[in-house]
């Protein structure tokens, strides 16, 4: 290294900075890499010493097993159905309610909104058991209804969308009302399009939450036909502790869709995540 007294400190710092960044990023990536790599190994090579960084031989056997012998495609379909319907529900119901709370005047509006905010404090575990009982009484356990219906709206979503709705100028809404729009028309034609950035955030939050949810689907489903990916993966993990390569194939299949969506929508993800923290 060319030691130049003036730039030495700077170069030294920059080198240190990049070293730290690269090392820490590697620590983040290696577990993912390791799970992909393991999923492509023969079972007897999973814990070989020295470890195989590159599988030798590479096999797709684990994926074939998980996709054909274990109903992973079914888990995938379940996760997708639940996440998509849940997300649609949130986009419609949360946004509509947010519009009412932000832009319409009606008796007890603020009291109801405050009541909802208070409910935001209640941890899910408090209502979990009676909720399960309600589902059982309705014979909804082990059906899509139990996975979807209690999660069609969320207070957080309403709160988030209300923040976006508040920024819409009232003049625009009044103009649409003058033109003879019904209140729903004003919502659909004026407020909804203007709240689209917020809706993108809402979609990401809801979809991710639903896709990764574990406790509720774990409790409310019993048969494999209804398992979502995390429940199916945990099940595979418990039943086949010795087939680590297969478990990893299941892990990759569970994580991959979310990672792909994330890589394509990174900006929206990050904006969505920071929205709650900074704009509150």
């Amino acid at each position, binding site marked *: 290294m060319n030691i130049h007294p003036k730039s030495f400190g700077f170069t030294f710092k920059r080198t240190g900075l990049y070293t730290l960044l690269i090392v*820490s990023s590697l620590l983040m990536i290696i577990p993912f890499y*390791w799970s992909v790599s393991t999923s492509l190994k023969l079972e007897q090579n999973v814990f070989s010493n020295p470890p195989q960084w590159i599988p030798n031989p590479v096999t797709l056997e684990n994926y074939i097993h998980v996709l054909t012998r274990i109903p992973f495609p079914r888990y995938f379909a379940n996760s997708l159905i639940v996440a998509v319907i849940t997300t649609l529900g949130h986009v419609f119901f949360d946004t509509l309610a947010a519009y009412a709370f932000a832009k319409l005047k009606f008796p007890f509006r603020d009291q109801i909104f405050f009541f909802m905010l208070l409910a935001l404090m209640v941890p899910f575990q408090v209502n979990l*058991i009676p*909720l399960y*009982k309600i589902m059982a009484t309705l014979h909804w356990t082990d059906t899509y209804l139990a996975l979807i219906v209690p999660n069609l*709206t969320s207070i957080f979503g309403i709160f988030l969308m209300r923040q976006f709705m508040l920024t819409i100028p009232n003049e625009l809404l009044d103009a649409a009302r003058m033109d003879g729009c019904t209140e729903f028309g004003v919502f659909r034609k004026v407020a909804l399009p203007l709240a689209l950035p917020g809706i993108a955030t809402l979609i990401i939050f809801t979809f991710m939450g639903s896709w990764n949810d574990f406790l509720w689907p774990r409790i409310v489903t019993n048969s494999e036909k209804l398992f979502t990916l995390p429940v199916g993966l945990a099940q595979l993990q418990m039943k086949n502790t010795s087939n680590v390569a297969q478990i990893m194939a299941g892990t990759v299949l569970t994580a991959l869709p979310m990672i792909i969506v994330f890589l394509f929508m990174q900006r929206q993800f*990050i904006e969505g995540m*920071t929205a709650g923290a900074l704009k509150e």
Partner: protein
Amino acid sequence: MTVIQHSRKLTYSIQKYGISYLFISVPLLSLIVFLFIPMIVSLWWSLNDYSGLTAAKFVGLNNYIKLLTDDKIFAKSLLNTTLFVLLGMSIGPTLGLLTAMMLNQKVRFSSLFRTAYYLPVMTSLVVVSTIWLMLYNRNGLFNVVLQEFGLPKVGWLSNPDIALISIVFASVWQGFGFETVVFLAALQSIPRELYEAAMMDGAGAWAQFRYITLPALRPVILFVYIIGIIGSYQVFDQIFVMSSGGPVYSTSTIVYYLFDKFMDLRLGYASAIAYILFAILVIFSYLQMRISRERA
């Protein structure tokens, strides 16, 4: 006011406000049916001996008394959860702030590094826990690395003294990227001029951090800690996948114990656990509300 006037006024109100109530009806109904009523039912059950199969038997505060004075496993779970929160919260946000400050140094490929930190955050906890379970295996990657350095193998999840710490580690790894991203956004919103002025006055790096960065980040730091504490107190997925609360209850947490009692059909007891958790979280939620009101 006559009855007719009254009913006219009512009709008028319905016409005028009905649409608003219609707009909020589904979330409100959902809130009442799926949250409010279950909450009350849960509170009632917590005062009962109830299995869900036979009739409930009112026992007053017995469940609470037993949990708080006579249940060693619950005491252990409470302690474990608190340790989990304390350990996780002393590492996670610090790591988040450090990485955010590194990324804020106008580095190349900063979005690539940010992606690396953030990747586990959007990955399901079940996935992350499954991967770490493999890494923590007796013959897994961590022990192989230790052996490379001539060190003995560690029972990451089988040693009761270490298991909880191992789970904290995996959880911090999973979650600190959220803090990185939040802190980075906050750091970027601090006006550069502040730092320039400070440098003119001869303030060093530490003074700049102490007197500009830290005060500017204060609200975000508080937000991150409170959200983190509330979330960590509810830790479950990692425990379920990685340790099932063991060995010898060394990783049993409040929600895991609640789940366990639920599976044993001790619904009244489990409900009381839920309300104790609720009481703990209300304290932190109250703090959060006060803080966000301060900011508004």
